[in-house]
């Protein structure tokens, strides 16, 4: 009797181990930059920019080969937070490593925004949810530039602000850069240094934010 229980448990353990061995892994590292240098929060750059907060959602990861999707991550929601180094690495357990493009969304899709409260990275305690106009903040950037304090909370699903990002790569260890200086240099901070509500302006700035992502290979 003891023997059969033991063998059952061992069989179970072996299955778990084997399935773990079969899983393939792609490592995605997000590298926030400020003027092409690694972003250090609170540290002023040579052109007097200081970033105090950078947080954004990357969701719905998938790989494709010759335009055909070969793998899609399930429940794919990752909160990237420049102040939390472990959030900058995403493990994608793809069963197929033969791809030539990686795809993801900057922000959360509209279904996520109308489906009530969620846990994990989507938990409203993460500071990325608007209480008085339901919906997720997709991209949050706060700091100072030449003495002007700025605060950009881009989000909302109506009109949609979520952006699709497609980057060419076939590596299993991908570093994706995002240079926030490019965002600040595109905007006239003397005219607009604050945005915290959904709408057309949030849509416009979200497009700019999505253009910041690139792979340097």
């Amino acid at each position, binding site marked *: 009797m*003891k*023997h059969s*229980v*033991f063998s059952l*448990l*061992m069989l179970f*353990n072996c299955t778990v181990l084997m399935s773990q061995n079969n899983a393939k892994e792609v490592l995605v590292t997000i590298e926030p930059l400020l003027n092409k240098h690694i972003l250090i929060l609170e540290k002023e750059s040579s052109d007097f920019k200081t970033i105090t907060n950078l947080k954004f959602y990357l969701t719905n990861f998938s790989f494709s080969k010759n335009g055909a999707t070969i793998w899609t991550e399930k429940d794919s929601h990752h909160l990237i937070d420049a102040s939390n180094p472990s959030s900058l690495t995403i493990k994608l357990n793809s069963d197929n490593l033969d791809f030539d493009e990686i795809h993801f969304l900057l922000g959360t899709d509209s279904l996520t*925004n*109308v*489906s*009530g*409260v*969620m*846990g994990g990275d989507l*938990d*409203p*305690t993460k*500071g990325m*949810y608007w*209480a*008085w*106009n*339901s*919906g997720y903040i997709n991209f949050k950037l706060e700091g100072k530039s030449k003495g002007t304090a700025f605060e950009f909370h881009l989000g909302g699903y109506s009109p949609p602000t979520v952006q699709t990002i497609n980057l060419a790569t076939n590596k299993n260890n991908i570093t994706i850069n995002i240079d926030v200086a490019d965002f600040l240099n595109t905007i006239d901070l003397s005219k607009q240094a604050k945005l915290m509500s959904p*709408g057309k302006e949030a849509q416009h700035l979200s497009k700019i934010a999505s253009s910041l992502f690139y792979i340097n290979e």
Partner: protein
Amino acid sequence: MSKNSIIAILSLFAFLGLAMFYPSSTTPIKTTYPSYWPKPTYDFSKNPLTQEGIDLGRKLFYDPILSSDSSISCSNCHLSFTAFTHVDHALSHGVNDSIGTRNSPSLMNLAWHTSFMWDGAVNHLDVQGLAPISHPAEMNEDINNVIKKLQRNSYPSLFFKAFGDSNITGEHLLKAISQFELTLISCNSKYDSVMQKQTVFNSQEANGYKLFKQNCASCHTEPFFTNHQFENNGLFIDTLLNDYGRYNITKNPNDSLKFKVPTLRNIEFSFPYMHDGRFKNLSEVLKHYTKNINHSTTLSNHLKNPITLTSNEKVDLTTFLLTLTDKNFLFNKNNSFPNELFHPTEKD
């Protein structure tokens, strides 16, 4: 052999350890409602009701720990005996005697609602609680701080019972409050008995029902007595509050002065009326609809033709509205302050 047994025992411990992360036994609760009602819009599969979850949500609903100075609970503005609204208060109150800008709405049959707040700012019941918790003129608190306070209190074991996790999350906190609110179903008024052919209206009520269907039902649609839409019901704007309603959310000029159509169930107890509580009683409300409509560009199509009612008809209509009172709901002990949850050892 002995080595094998040790491994077997260790593996069993590992399994028990895993099992501890899953909910212990919970008691599922089924939502019941009249057969002629449509299916709820709330997706119960994502937050299945359990007695443990409902009890936890009820305790949270009545606990001022949710507010920054522990002075205000949800029930301060949503009293069970008055269909969960703040009776006799035009505008809701918050911490430090602050006063909000809107009349707290009644809470019932929320599983059928498609939006929340007078302007539809909130799109799902689960996330509604975030709004009053964070509003400076309501609870003025941060949800992370609420969780810190709950974690130090008696709550971790209650969250474990309900969700199998003593580590409190925003998700579980809000889902528990939803669970209690989802049990607030009002479906036992005289009107409901008539619909189920258990009784009949008297002649006054019957005439009132006829007048209601002719003049009111296009917005206050049965069986919930709201069409869940946003309408401009012809109120002149309060120049102190300058509240443009739905427009504040959508920024669409067509939504200016539109507010969510409130339910008329239990209207006898949910005074004062309107989004800013400007009318103290039903006769003022009927006077507004028959005499004082402001014909602005976004006025509801249903109010473009004048409503005319004789004084006898007004009495009949009011008599019908009183048949929407559901005493089983208003005085249901399962909805009121849960003394047994706050003081488990004291029996009353």
